């Protein structure tokens, strides 16, 4: 096995499982629909809340995707093979993560104009939304990976994973929605974007190693 052959294999896996990606997007659509239906469909409610609604939906969609990241590999024995392959496990995890991230984020970015118009988010703010997604979603994926790695051997680890991971998502959500709200009120939002980038970079430094430790412990 080489890093390249692993990366190619992961890409093939994602492409063959297109249904999973479609599911995430439909899920996202459902949550976005939930708020107007459940609360208030008027633009006076939806426009200021749009950033928050989209980010809550993004968080849930990412959590769904991350939760099953290692499950299949664990059950069919390929995770074992990765650990003893002699390759650097944190980097393998990073490659896998990157493929997942692309698989979830690219469709999301393409559909973001649709979602923002459904929530009455002005076009001028769309670019800020896209920036927050680009800068904040890596952090969510990276931190989520640690949770997935810790709970992969549990039969019903999904709820436990959410419990552990959600507190760490709060800063990302706070700053991402903060940036969008600031843009909506005409204020400066570069600070918030910078912090999002910083959190993602810190997660990039920390998560692959932590996830590798967790995987090695879990595969007994």
């Amino acid at each position, binding site marked *: 096995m080489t890093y390249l052959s692993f990366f190619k294999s992961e890409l093939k896996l994602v492409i063959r499982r297109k249904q999973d990606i479609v599911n995430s997007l439909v899920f996202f659509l459902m949550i976005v629909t939930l708020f107007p239906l459940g609360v208030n469909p008027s633009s006076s409610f939806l426009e200021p809340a749009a950033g928050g609604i989209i980010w809550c939906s993004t968080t849930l969609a990412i959590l769904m995707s991350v939760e099953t990241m290692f499950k299949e590999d664990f059950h069919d024995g390929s995770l074992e093979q990765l650990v003893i392959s002699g390759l650097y496990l944190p980097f393998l995890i990073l490659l896998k993560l990157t493929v997942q991230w692309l698989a979830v984020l690219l469709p999301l970015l393409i559909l973001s104009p649709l979602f923002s118009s459904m929530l009455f988010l002005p076009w001028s703010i769309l670019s800020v939304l896209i920036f927050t997604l680009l800068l904040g979603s890596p952090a969510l994926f990276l*931190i989520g990976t*640690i949770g997935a790695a*810790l*709970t992969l*051997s*549990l039969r019903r*680890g999904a709820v*436990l994973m959410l*419990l*552990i991971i*959600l*507190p*760490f998502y*709060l*800063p990302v959500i*706070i*700053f991402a929605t*903060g940036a969008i*709200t600031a843009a909506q009120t005409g204020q400066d939002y570069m600070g918030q974007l910078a*912090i999002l980038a910083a*959190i993602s970079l*810190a997660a990039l430094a*920390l998560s692959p190693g*932590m996830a590798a*430790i*967790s995987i090695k*412990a*879990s595969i*007994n």
Partner: protein
Amino acid sequence: MNWIWFHKLGSPKWFFHWADRWSKLIFIFGVSLFLLGIIWGLVFAPEDYQQGNSFRIIYIHVPSAMLAQSCYLALGISGIVSLVWQMKMAPIFIKSVAPIGAVMAIIALLSGAIWGKPTWGTWWVWDARLTSVLVLFILYMGVIAIQNSFDDTRLSDKAAVVISVVGLINLPIIKYSVDWWNTLHQPATFSIIEKPSMPAEMWVPLLFCVVGLYLFTVGVTCWRMQTELLIREKRSNWIKAEVLDSGV
């Protein structure tokens, strides 16, 4: 600096005997100090000119909030110690301290709510301090949950260590982000403790309560750790000798 004490702490046997000698004393001293502080504060300290008698809740709220944060700090550092030095006692410490920290967080939240009612008119308000204690409580529940979810001790220890280290690193980020979020959404609430202007009759009992509660926590944590050691090392000879000797 002499690091021998640090490595001694890592030996279960040494800790067990140390705790046997000292933990009861620490616990009793802590409880008495806390009771002293709380009776003084609740009954004898003068009324606050602004809040009347309701401010007295700080004698419970402040110590418990401080302890909730300190316990998590200790938990996180313990996780780092476990990762770097592979100290066997570290996961045991994490397991013992986590429920205590969680209870402290609940007490802080409840006392904060009790304080909030007469002061702000509502039981709950999303201010920075209460919200960060709430998040801290959820973090504690995460550590406790993950330790109880695995049958294999080695795995549950490793998982708890990873989550505490990640939590420790995230804690300042979460605190900062909640503070920042709060400045956006709330008008500045008056400071909860006006430190310099507190007369001695007010902050001395507070000090007693804080120190007393810390000592109480140390005592209880030692007991919990001893119990955990009894369970884990039940096959080793020194534990068998302990049990037979002292009839525990």
